[in-house]
Each structure stands twice: as structure tokens, then as C-alpha cells.
């Protein structure tokens, strides 16, 4: 078992009553295949978010967003000083 997983189970045991811990354990054992699917989905979502943020932060997109902001400002507050 990895150190992080041990830490996770320690947190569960500290926060859940023995009865809740038993239910949690049953849930894991009975749904192990669904859990793998969930982990894959979760990992794909995190990846997607990370890539989206990285793309938005790229110089090309930042430049375009800056021009979008400028156009928005001119469309909505044409009298505003830049």
C-alpha cells in the first residue's frame, strides 16, 4: 500500500465511526470495478482542466484575450480612457 493511501485510510478512520468504516469498506470491495472506471474518469477530467489552463496561459491566447478585453471595453465603455 502506498504511503498516501495509508494516510487516506487513516483520515477515514479518524473521521468515520466504526460502523461507517465498515460500510465504506463494503462499498470499496463491492464496487472495485466501478472504482477503477471512476479513477480513470477523474484522471481524464483533471488532465483536461490542466491542459485547458495551460492553453489559456499560452502567449498566443493571452494576446488574443487581451485584444478581446480591449474590444469589450471599447464596445461597452467607448468613452473610457485606455
Amino acid at each position, binding site marked *: 500500500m502506498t504511503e498516501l493511501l495509508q494516510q487516506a485510510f487513516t483520515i477515514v478512520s479518524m473521521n468515520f465511526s466504526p460502523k461507517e468504516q465498515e460500510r465504506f469498506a463494503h462499498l470499496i470491495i463491492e464496487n472495485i470495478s466501478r472504482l477503477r*472506471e471512476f479513477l480513470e474518469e477523474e484522471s481524464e477530467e483533471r488532465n483536461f482542466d490542466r491542459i485547458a489552463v495551460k492553453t489559456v496561459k499560452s502567449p498566443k491566447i493571452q494576446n488574443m484575450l487581451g485584444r478581446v478585453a480591449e474590444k469589450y471595453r471599447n464596445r461597452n465603455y467607448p468613452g473610457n480612457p485606455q
Partner: protein
Amino acid sequence: MKRILITGYFRKLLKKLRKHFDEQDITDDIKEFVRIGFRKGESRLTTEIFGDVTVEIVKLRIRVHNSAGRYLIGIIDGNEYLPIFIDLKTGCYGRNMSFNADKKTASMLESALENTLADYLEHTEEHPMFTEYLIE
């Protein structure tokens, strides 16, 4: 006045998913987001500040009948809601993770951002590049 801007590029993306979602579904979903805020699985990915104008990039979920999707929108200064990208939850960028999945996702998002923002920038009254829907 808050408004949703559907660009020509986003309309093209939607056309590929026409069996699942249409423009009305997207505008209804964004209106719902404006009304109630984030729901499960939705989040603000980043907030970019350009002087006195902020641009938020937000990930939202949509479900219509049996189809589930996720989409990105840009929110300009809390007033203009600009859909950028959409895909199906179980599409090729969902569970079927291939060796080059990250590269494919990056190139697809980059293309969506570039084309949507270009539509916004090139829009004029004489040559409209997006359709506006007011949010009451």
C-alpha cells in the same frame, strides 16, 4: 445587460454534435448557470485580468435526454458568455485515452480558443461573426 454570444466556430462544433445538443440547449444551460451558479462537476478553471476587464474560463456540464457533455465558456467581465468548446462525456476525449490523448486535447482546445476569439475580434455589425442572446 448579460448576453450569450454564439460564434460561427462554436456553431460548427455544435453541428458535429447535432444528434445530442443544439444551440437552444446551450443557451438554456448557460441561462441556468447564470441563475443558479456551479453544479456538480463544474468549475472555474482560471481568471485572467486585463486592466479593468476580467475573463473567466469556466467548465460546465450539459445533459439533454441521454446525452452528457462538457463545455468551456469564456465570461467577459461577468457580462458576455462566450461558448468556446464542447465535447461528449463519452466521446473520444472521454474514456478512450490513447497514447497521444494529451497532445490531441491540447491541439483541439487551442484551435477552439483561437477560432472563437478570432470570431469575437472580427465581428462587426456589417459582418456579424456571432449571434447575441440576451439573458433576462
